């Protein structure tokens, strides 16, 4: 009956924090009234939380809810579940701090509320630990365990997934994570692809376990690193730009060990593709730079056949000359490493290499390819060619596809020469037109200046075809011409080497 007093008392406390006598009254009520009725009233208050006073309400009510639940004779586990889900519903309305300063300031009280919720669960997790000592495993215990697990997984998804968690500074949210990740068999959840835990929760769990090392002692030290990587791949996809889980999972794997069959798994296709998007589209430089490191780390872990397939895939799908150039550089490195004794393989030194080379040495739009746009890839492809020719002697003896390689090379260089001369012609013409234009404009300006001395000042308008100033345009055109010179000089060098090799052979 005293429950009817709860609502006005609590409202008073929330409005006026220093209302000690109200606090005392509420505490007294929670000790003497019927716990079931109390629970009902308190939960109603939680659900009616004023959006402007979320953290105050949670902080005020949570300790009292604990008192009440502990007083229940039966249905404790279900009540714990009800309380936690009601509180979490309110908690999810609070913004998550994402810098250290924000976390310390805790303006909206999220961190304090998380601590309060962890404190609420304490006596229940302790009771489960104690119960482990007795062999009696009641249905009630199982239910309690299930509710606490649900709470943990919900918290992982919200707010922990969005928080900036770093163990080195033991922030409030990091401490919250350590407190809720109890239960020795949490790791099973990472391996299960079925179950009602959301992917985001499991991703966060994997991150906290493998990167932040929370509860890592409970993770059996018998699983193979490749299997762990495989399990983590879909979670890595969820939080790709964080890189940490990806890096950690890859580091445990031996170089050159991931088999091509793994690339057929959907997550092993998605993650590199998404990473590629970051590399080509993300405006934040530090993310692109770090992303490139992780990209290379992944490549290093693939075995020869997998690398071959991956390179083919990237060359066909990335549509980005920077990435394509990077892949071609990797191809060159693979050829080099395959030539070392005991490393020989057909993927980079045999019949299979021909198809890969064909993809590396091609101009996407034939003789009309934009050489400036595709510069990165073309320069790398010429470097690759030069390397192959310098190593002709060794390659001829190992690879039985030298004639094929030469045919591809000849076709490519022929087309490239044509492309360069077309491009050069075009850019030279543009540059000439621009310079003529400049001369005319200068004349006009001088004429206008003379006229201005006689008449009122007239502003001379600069008519620009693009947003760039004429000087900037000139620079662009000239650097394009320099690029063509570079390409041509490389081609000449390649042909020189070919000549020299012919002489040596004959």
């Amino acid at each position, binding site marked *: 009956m005293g429950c009817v007093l709860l609502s006005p008392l609590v409202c008073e406390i929330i409005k006026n924090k220093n209302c000690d006598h109200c606090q005392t009254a509420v505490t007294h009520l929670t000790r003497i009234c019927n716990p079931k009725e109390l629970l009902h009233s308190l939960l109603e208050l939680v659900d009616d939380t004023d959006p402007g006073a979320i953290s105050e309400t949670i902080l005020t009510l949570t300790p009292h809810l604990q008192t009440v639940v502990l007083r229940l004779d039966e249905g404790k586990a279900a009540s714990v579940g009800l309380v936690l889900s009601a509180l979490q519903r309110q908690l999810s309305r609070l913004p998550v701090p994402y810098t250290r300063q924000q976390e310390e300031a805790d303006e909206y009280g999220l961190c304090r509320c998380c601590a309060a919720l962890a404190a609420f669960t304490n006596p229940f997790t302790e009771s489960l630990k104690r119960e*482990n000592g007795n062999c009696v*495993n009641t249905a009630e215990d199982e239910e309690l365990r299930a509710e606490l697990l649900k709470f943990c997984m919900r918290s992982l998804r919200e707010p922990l997934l969005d928080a900036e968690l770093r163990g080195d500074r033991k922030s409030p949210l990091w401490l919250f994570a350590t407190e809720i990740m109890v239960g020795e068999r949490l790791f099973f959840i990472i391996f299960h692809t079925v179950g009602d835990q959301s992917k985001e929760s499991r991703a966060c769990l994997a991150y906290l376990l493998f990167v932040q*090392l929370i509860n890592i002692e409970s993770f*059996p030290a*018998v*699983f*193979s690193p490749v299997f762990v990587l495989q399990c983590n791949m879909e979670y890595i996809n969820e939080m790709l730009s964080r890189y940490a889980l990806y890096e950690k999972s890859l580091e*445990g794997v031996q170089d050159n060990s991931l*088999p091509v069959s793994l690339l057929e798994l959907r997550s092993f296709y998605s993650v590199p593709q998404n990473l590629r998007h970051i590399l080509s589209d993300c405006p934040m430089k530090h993310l692109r730079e770090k992303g490139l490191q992780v990209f290379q780390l992944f490549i290093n872990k693939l075995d020869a056949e997998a690398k071959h397939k991956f390179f083919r895939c990237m060359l066909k799908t990335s549509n980005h000359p920077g990435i394509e150039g990077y892949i071609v550089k990797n191809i060159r490195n693979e050829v080099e490493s395959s030539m070392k004794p005991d490393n020989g393989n057909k993927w980079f030194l045999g019949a299979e290499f021909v198809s890969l080379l064909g993809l590396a040495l091609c101009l996407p739009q034939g003789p009309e390819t934009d050489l400036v746009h595709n510069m990165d890839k073309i320069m790398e492809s010429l470097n690759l060619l030069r390397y192959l020719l310098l190593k002709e002697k060794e390659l001829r003896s190992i690879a039985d596809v030298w004639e094929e390689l030469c045919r591809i090379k000849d076709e490519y260089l022929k087309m490239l020469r044509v492309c360069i001369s077309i491009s050069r012609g075009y850019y030279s013409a543009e540059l000439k037109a621009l310079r003529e234009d400049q001369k005319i404009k200068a004349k006009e300006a001088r004429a206008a200046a003379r006229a201005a001395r006689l008449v009122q000042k007239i502003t001379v308008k600069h008519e620009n075809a693009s947003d760039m100033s004429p000087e900037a345009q000139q620079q662009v055109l000239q650097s394009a011409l320099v690029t063509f010179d570079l390409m041509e000089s490389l081609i000449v060098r390649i042909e020189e080497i070919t000549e020299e090799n012919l002489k040596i052979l004959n």
Partner: protein
Amino acid sequence: MAAEPAREWSDEQLKSDDLPKKDIIKFIQDNAAHSFLNEHKLLGNIKNVAKTAKKEQLITAYNQLFESKRFKGTDPVEEVTEQVKAVKVEEKPKEVKTEVVDEGPPKFTKSVLKKGDKTNFPKKGDTVSCWYTGTLEDGTVFDTNIPAAARKKKQAKPLSFKVGMGKVIRGWDEALLTMSKGETARVEIEPEWAYGKKGLPDSKIPPNAKLIFEIELVSTD
């Protein structure tokens, strides 16, 4: 001796795209002598043979078979081989391994501490359950799933996983396949079949560590 098999397909039919390679291979495998199959590289799992043999090769082999009449039973050794085959337990066709086949000596040793039932041995893909304790060479225990003796944890369950599938370190996969239900063994695994050069720093396993496990195979399905 069986009657000479009939020539089912004409040249036209053989060249046609409607006739899959697998059918030709099956016919030749069913009817040709072992030595014939060996020479024409037609031994083994039909799927694998189909991958490596071109249609023209198969047509040639098919024709050669009827020309040379080297059918089953025409090999002098054949009859004995057939009898031996009948006695052996039927093997499942092996899948081609995608990993590099390690031809070196096994990189683990096992000593049986408690005998198992010697009847129920796990096969690849079976789910096994184990209690285990893992120590380093210096005796440090780095992992165990056996509950502390003081508290008998009802919650504790043995570790379950599918054996022989690369989910665990190779030493475990290989050792468990040699154990029978109820067996407890001490397994010493070289780093190459454990965590190798990298180790598992987060779990206190240093680089190039030899691992010693005491494993009890509780069940296998």
